[in-house]
């Protein structure tokens, strides 16, 4: 039985030793080389006396970062990928919480790390520790002491209060998730993945571990391709990438720039997306272009190991209909609870809660925040059983598919109605001139504000919205933007939008 993610690499390195595993702009690493390099890193960490300690990795989006992650895992430690573009103050906050046993970095980032991390002797330069000869016996002895519930990684998510929270995920949860990905999307040794998700964003877990388990190949797409969507499509074509797991904004941009017919991308047979709402109109443009490809909307917060529900787009969706988040992933259970903590009936809205092996152990060194959202299942008073409360509001449609309505924090009370701002955004985004839409609520003025990008006057937009949503949901104030502010993960930045509106 697979117990640790390193078991994947052991098996695959035997089966496909010389097959490229990870490829970036500068290097190609085969499974055999990956295994060897990871064990060199592991040997260095073990010799430094590090066991069950956090290892921060600041190596950007590179094959070396993957080596370092697996090196930490082989050493019985766990890793935290750091976003090297992050402001130093945020890196410092994360390192203060994490207190890593070591920070693995390279000369490009070592200065930044040195000023953010007090313990200088624990900053390890990747190329230096790679010189260490791998000691198989030492690594084996450590591996024997590990169990599947040991921690694999801690990912920091932006807390709404400004203090990042470290989500703790074990090996077992990742193995459970990757098994599901393999059987649902038929990932195999013929799969060629195109990685977009930064390693500090958990969508990348699919790219890394599906590749390891199935002996696939993952191309780490150079960042600059995302500035020039046509280059991205050419990259997909040239590398014959057939499977992608991207954020919707990347797919949307390609569709908005009318680039779908500009490039031969018929190699793509599996297009997965998650992280924010995928606008249906742009999804339909993609489906029209690649009629035989599988398109699936995946949903899940970092706290439940990447995804807990999914929807395979297999029927016609009208542009005005939201893309469902679908049904639970195998071995995940979804409870939709109303305000009385009872299961919802028919199309009643409620908070999506998750039960399963996928649950994180909580937030690193933060018992208060952990206790707020990892709670006893209110439907089970008989024995301890944890569920995770996502804070996301959903309902079931008439087909029994889950529909995402918005964040609990975005649920507003206006003119006596309970309104999901996300529903207004979906309606606005379904109108052809609207390229992006983001809805805010000014509680002081009791006013719904729609910020949008697109060549349409506010008056006309308002008239069209009248036919799509009830009158009490039609926004009062309209802000036409040149561009939508996006955060580091490529999602619409509501905090920044609010600041912009306050200023104007």
């Amino acid at each position, binding site marked *: 039985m697979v117990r640790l993610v390193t078991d994947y690499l052991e098996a695959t390195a035997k089966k496909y030793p010389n097959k490229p595993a990870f490829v970036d702009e500068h290097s190609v690493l085969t499974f055999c080389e990956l295994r060897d390099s990871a064990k060199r890193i592991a040997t260095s960490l073990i010799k430094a006396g590090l066991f069950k300690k956090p290892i921060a990795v600041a190596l950007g989006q590179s094959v070396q970062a993957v080596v370092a992650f697996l090196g930490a895992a082989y050493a019985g430690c766990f890793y935290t990928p750091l976003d090297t573009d992050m402001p130093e103050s945020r890196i410092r906050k994360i390192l203060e919480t994490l207190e890593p046993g070591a920070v693995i970095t390279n000369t490009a980032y070592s200065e930044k790390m040195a000023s953010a991390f007090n313990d200088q002797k624990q900053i390890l330069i990747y190329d230096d520790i790679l010189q260490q000869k791998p000691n198989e016996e030492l690594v084996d002895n450590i591996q024997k002491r590990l169990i599947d519930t040991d921690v694999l990684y801690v990912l920091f998510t932006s807390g709404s209060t400004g203090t990042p929270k470290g989500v703790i995920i074990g090996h077992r949860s990742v193995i459970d998730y990757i098994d599901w990905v393999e059987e649902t999307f038929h990932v195999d040794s013929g799969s060629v993945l195109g990685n977009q998700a930064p390693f500090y964003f958990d969508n990348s877990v699919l790219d890394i571990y599906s590749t390891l388990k199935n002996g696939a190949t993952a191309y780490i797409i150079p*960042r*600059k391709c*995302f*500035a*020039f*969507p*046509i*280059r991205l499509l050419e990259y997909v074509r040239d590398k014959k990438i057939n499977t992608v797991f991207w954020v919707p904004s990347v797919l949307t*941009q*390609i569709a908005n*720039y*009318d*680039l779908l017919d*500009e490039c031969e991308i018929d190699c793509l047979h599996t297009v997965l997306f998650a992280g924010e709402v995928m606008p249906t109109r742009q999804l339909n443009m993609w489906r029209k272009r690649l009629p035989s490809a599988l398109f699936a909307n995946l949903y899940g917060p970092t706290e439940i190991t990447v995804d807990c529900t999914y929807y395979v787009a297999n029927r016609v969706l009208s542009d005005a209909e939201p893309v469902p988040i679908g049904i639970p992933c195998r071995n995940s259970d979804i409870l939709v609870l109303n305000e009385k903590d009872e299961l919802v009936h028919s199309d009643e809205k409620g908070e999506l809660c998750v039960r399963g092996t996928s649950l994180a152990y909580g937030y690193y060194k933060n018992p208060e925040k952990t206790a707020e959202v990892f709670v006893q299942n209110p439907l089970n008073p008989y024995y301890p059983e944890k569920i995770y409360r996502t804070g996301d509001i959903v309902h079931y449609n008439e087909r029994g598919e889950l529909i995402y309505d918005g964040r609990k924090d975005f649920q507003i009370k206006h003119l006596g109605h309970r309104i999901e701002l996300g529903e207004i955004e979906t309606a606005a985004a379904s109108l052809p001139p609207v390229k992006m839409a983001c809805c805010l609520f000014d509680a002081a003025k009791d006013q719904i504000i729609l910020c949008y*990008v697109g060549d349409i006057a506010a008056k006309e937009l308002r008239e069209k919205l009248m036919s799509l949503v009830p009158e009490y949901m039609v926004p009062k104030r309209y802000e036409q933007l*040149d*561009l939508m502010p*996006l955060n580091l993960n490529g999602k619409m930045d509501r905090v920044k939008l609010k600041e912009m509106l306050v200023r104007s």
Partner: protein
Amino acid sequence: MKKVIDILQELRPEFDFTTNEDYIEDGMLDSFDVVSLVSMMDKEYGISIKGREIVPENFSSLAKIQALVKKYGVTDEV
């Protein structure tokens, strides 16, 4: 009408766009900046630049960006 240089300066005030550096290769414009620049030029000059023309070669210098704007029929000095 704003000039291209003003738009660039507005976008990234910390850089000097009159230098001979390559805006893209030298990291003066990142992926979000390019997207922003395209929509700002749309608004300022009323041109919608085609996706296939959003390539590094057209955004690497002031002269290249000006040439791109001219190509879309803007006759004024940009």
